[in-house]
């Protein structure tokens, strides 16, 4: 995609609408990625509460996995998990 030129973007770095962080793929920053063992997971959703990047996918009150497009691999979910079912793996 051709990037916009100086005349096409808002002045001063202003972002003129909300929710645009979604378009920024911060997942590329990751060194370690979280992997969940759903056989051990108790769906307490502590990981969902603590994740600083809203990258825990939850459906109908159940933890379903990760949004790897935005997860930066900080490991907070793995650290907070009370049943230690999240592991940080390389890649």
């Amino acid at each position, binding site marked *: 995609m051709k*990037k*916009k*030129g*100086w005349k096409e*973007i*808002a*002045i*001063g*770095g*202003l*972002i*003129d*609408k*909300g929710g*645009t962080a979604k378009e920024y793929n911060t997942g590329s920053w990751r060194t370690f990625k979280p992997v969940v063992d759903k056989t051990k997971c108790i769906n307490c959703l502590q990981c969902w509460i603590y994740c600083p990047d809203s990258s825990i996918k939850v459906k109908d009150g159940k933890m379903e996995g990760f949004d790897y497009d935005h997860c930066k691999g900080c490991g907070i979910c793995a650290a907070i998990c009370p049943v230690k079912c999240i592991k940080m793996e390389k890649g």
Partner: protein
Amino acid sequence: MRVKEKEKMATKKLIGMTGDQAAAHAMRQIAPDVVAAYPITPQTEIVMSFSQFVADGKVATELIPVESEHSAMSACIGSAAAGARTMTATSANGLALMWEVVYIAASTRLPIVMSVVNRALSAPINIHCDHSDTMGARDSGWIQIYSENAQEVYENIISAVKIAEHKDIRLPVMVCQDGFITSHAVEGIELSDDKTIKDFIGEYKIDHSLLDIDNPVTYGPLDLQDFYFEHKYQQSFAMKNALSVIPKVLQEFNKTFGKNHDLIEEYKLKDADIGIVALSSTAGTARAVIDDLRKKGIKAGLLKPVFFRPFPAERILKAISHLKVVGVMDRAESFSTMGGPLFSEIRSAMYDSKQKPPIVNYIYGLGGRDIFPEDIEKVYEELESIKRAGKIKTLISYLGVRE
């Protein structure tokens, strides 16, 4: 005094006040939505007087006394982004403490107007006039106006609001005045009426308010290799564009208030052989010296750049290229070993000029060292001797420094 001048004086309603008070009155009449300022030294009487107006109910501005200049400019940025017309004031080390956020205000393109009382930067500790503070901020992206006297301070602050907020500019403006010389000396000031000022500046309208929760926006986000450069170019373009937009705003100002403001000001320069370039109050002293020299048959002239940012290079060149010798007066040292900031820029601009008169630099008045008519006379004498000899002996002189 001629009768006509006397009559003119009699019809003018002059009020005695300092440059600081003139600035505070301009702020009172502009009645910005918000003023955020650090209330103690190195702050000046500007904020003290303005606080009094707020306390007395003479202006409805929200005054935010903050804990430092860094916070003052930060609060101004938030306020301006929210859509409030915002002003502040500072001086010397106060401006230095603001540094980081001074850049952010300009880069975020917020039209804040700030009075700056030009005073020396420490160390050694000195509170008197020189231009080190704002000259240090010359690359921050702010428009800079230098005022010769209290009347100009008053008028420049009013035009600054309109310049800063102009849709084709959108840059903050510093309105500078010489510390103590202008800021603390009492002069007769002619104030305009509130309504004319309000009508002239109009209403501050912002396209994207930080407080508009129905249309959320982000000010000052992360901006990396992919877009930062484009945003810097936008700033650069706006500053360049300002060179042609400012004269239009000033024309409107002149029409409304019956004044004669421009990017630069000349005094007896057209037929001059030798001329000096000086900012702010020194220009006033130079005028008196020129009048004396003219009586002796010496064709001396003066150029006073009113705007230093944007730098009106073309106008300056046009005004001084015909001279036989030019002396540039800098009340700031840049430590480049190539002269002061005003000198460097004028000399650089001359590179492309067909006419290149010899040009020399005088660094003067640092730390408030007085600049007397005799000092300026000495400069003109040296320019005369360069004219006669046809060559420059000393490129950069430090006027009056003792051996």
